């Protein structure tokens, strides 16, 4: 038997409960802490956790394209890079800076100047093509960064500039259609939350926080080819006549679509750094002018509708002047007794005034107003104006007489072209549209079909020898139209030397397809009559446009009759 060990001294009786209590306390402390972290203050740790596997990504949405009626792009957004620098933070060797300068296609001196100029942020270049930006990123210069942005390109350039407009920063429309249709074109970027793996690949879509909304494409009524044609001819006429400005509008007579609308002066929407504001104006829609004689057909139509005259009623215009309440109206040529048809053909102010004065002012006002004068053409274009047509109650007789030949009333060119749909159709005013329209549209009757046909015949006489605009004739097609030559308003009085020459017409007369309105502001190369300045533009644009659209001819090709030199019929307004 082995000897027994000495028994250990007995432990104090309190020790076990104390240890047990301490352990229990610590356990409870841990439980409480974990409860606190799980239930109460859980935000921080959850954020830390999710930041390791989940990401919120922006889902880009690009702006819709603007295309012409054939689908040719007029405005496209494409992602590009902007290179920016934080000059204070730049650490670069001279070699790196040289490489950067050559990549940016910028002299090294200019780069250094830019980097020295600003404190904490400067754009070095925007836009930069994505591959160039990758090349710059590969240089790994501290303090040089890039960011992706959308840049909008306008392939149509200056030809389309005033219609399409342009976008500013962050691709938001600033002018023209870009501004008017911002909500249709603009995309809204979305957000989504994803789970990524350690290689940075997206492995799961957790939630879509906000679905992206892509911008939608927009088809304009504009036809690129006709637009270019109109622009080219307008530009040529403005240079030939040393004019200050001009505009041309082409409307589809059946659908009311604006298939071409060009202005001068223009700007390049792709490079606007030195563009002055006034060049951006779409004069055909935002500016008004006094139309002059192109208003006469409406006066005559009102009189025909009221039964006051017939096309063959004789109006005595001798002696070429008419005095009303102290003011005197002149004709450029003394004509004597004219039929109503000839009043239009020769563009007699006295004749038009006399016919107007036979009408109650309210009847004349009503015809003009229903033809769309005094109200904006509702194209949705920003800044479009409605011109001025004062209420008939305020007309004095002299005003009624001058409005008859287009003074004391102001219009914009689109409005004037639209008003001529009354004569190209059988008396109906068609709504105009800058956007593509499918099929023919219904108009609103303004004058009776008989009156419309009668005026149409008078307008055809205008371009024939003996009329004011033989230069508006088009080989192979019957055309009809009216000249306008108006003194420009210079403050409150009319200028004696500055004119606005215009021509509005349509063709082919047998079944009108196109309406073209031309306005040349302040021609100063000697000629200033609408028949001499604006009518040739009408003729070349109309002829080429009808051929481009393969419109069947309605006259033999040798139909153009040029009156002998010196027998031109001039008009004062």
């Amino acid at each position, binding site marked *: 038997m082995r000897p027994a060990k000495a028994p250990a001294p007995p432990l104090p009786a309190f020790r076990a409960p104390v240890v047990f209590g301490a352990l229990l306390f610590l356990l409870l402390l841990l439980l409480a802490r974990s409860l606190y972290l799980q239930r109460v203050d859980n935000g921080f740790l959850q954020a830390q956790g999710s930041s390791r596997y989940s990401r919120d990504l922006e889902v880009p949405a690009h702006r819709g394209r603007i295309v012409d009626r054939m689908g*040719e792009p007029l405005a496209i*957004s*494409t992602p590009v890079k902007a290179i920016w620098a934080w000059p204070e933070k730049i650490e670069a060797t001279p070699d790196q800076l040289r490489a950067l300068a050559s990549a940016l296609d910028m002299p090294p001196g200019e780069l250094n100047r830019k980097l020295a100029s600003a404190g904490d942020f400067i754009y070095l270049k925007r836009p930069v093509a994505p591959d160039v930006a990758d090349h710059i990123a590969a240089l790994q210069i501290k303090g040089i960064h890039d960011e992706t942005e959308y840049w909008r390109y306008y*392939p149509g350039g200056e030809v389309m500039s005033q219609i399409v407009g342009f976008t500013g920063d962050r691709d938001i429309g600033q002018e023209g259609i870009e501004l008017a249709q911002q909500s249709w074109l603009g995309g809204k970027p979305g957000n989504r939350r994803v789970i990524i793996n350690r290689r940075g690949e997206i492995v*799961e879509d957790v939630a879509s926080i906000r679905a992206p909304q892509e911008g939608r494409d927009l088809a304009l009524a504009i036809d690129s080819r006709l637009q270019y*044609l109109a622009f080219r001819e307008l530009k040529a006429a403005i240079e030939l006549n040393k004019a200050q400005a001009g505009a041309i509008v082409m409307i589809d007579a059946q659908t009311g679509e604006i298939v071409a609308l060009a202005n001068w002066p223009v700007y390049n929407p792709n490079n606007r750094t030195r563009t002055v504001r006034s060049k951006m104006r779409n004069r055909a829609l935002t500016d008004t002018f006094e139309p002059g004689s192109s208003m006469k057909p409406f006066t005559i139509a009102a009189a025909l509708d009221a039964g006051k005259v017939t096309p063959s009623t004789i109006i005595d215009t001798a002696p070429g002047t008419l005095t009303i309440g102290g003011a005197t109206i002149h004709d450029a040529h003394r004509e004597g007794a004219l039929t109503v048809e000839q009043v239009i053909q020769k563009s007699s102010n006295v004749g038009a005034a006399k016919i107007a004065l036979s009408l109650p002012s309210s009847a004349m006002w009503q015809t003009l107003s229903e033809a769309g004068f005094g109200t904006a053409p509702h194209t949705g274009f920003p800044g479009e104006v409605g011109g001025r047509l004062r209420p008939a109650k305020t007309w004095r007789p002299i005003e009624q007489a001058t409005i008859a030949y287009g003074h004391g009333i102001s219009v914009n060119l689109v409005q004037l072209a639209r008003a001529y749909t009354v004569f190209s159709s059988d008396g109906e005013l068609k709504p105009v549209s800058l956007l593509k329209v499918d099929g023919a549209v219904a108009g609103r009757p303004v004058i009776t079909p008989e009156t419309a046909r009668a005026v149409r015949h008078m307008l055809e006489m205008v371009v024939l020898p003996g009329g004011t605009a033989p230069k508006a004739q088009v*080989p*192979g097609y019957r055309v009809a139209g009216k000249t306008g030559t108006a003194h420009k308003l210079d403050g409150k009085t009319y200028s004696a030397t500055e004119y606005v020459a215009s021509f509005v017409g349509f063709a082919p007369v047998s079944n009108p397809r196109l309406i073209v309105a031309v306005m040349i502001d302040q021609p100063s190369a000697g000629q200033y009559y609408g028949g001499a300045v604006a009518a040739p533009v009408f003729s070349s644009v109309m002829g080429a446009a009808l051929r481009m659209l393969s419109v069947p001819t309605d006259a033999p090709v040798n139909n153009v009759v040029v009156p002998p030199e010196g027998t031109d019929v001039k008009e004062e307004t």
Partner: protein
Amino acid sequence: MMARLNVLLLVVLVACAISLVTSRHQARKLFVDLEREQARSRSLDVEFGQLQIEQSTWAMPARVEKVARDQLHMQLPDATRIEVMDELKR
């Protein structure tokens, strides 16, 4: 008897668990592929836009006219040299 059933259920459970893991893995792989293709589709979209810009720049009427006139020496025929065919009488 009871023990056998339990073993069987265990085997089924393990099989299910493993198939869940594989299908989950498959799903992730496919999702990565999907993401990659979507990114490709976006970059192709971008390229398409750039090509459209390029094409319309080349096809600008002003340029076409210049090339036709200057390089190809083309000209517009005047109206007397244009014969119009009537579709109805053909």
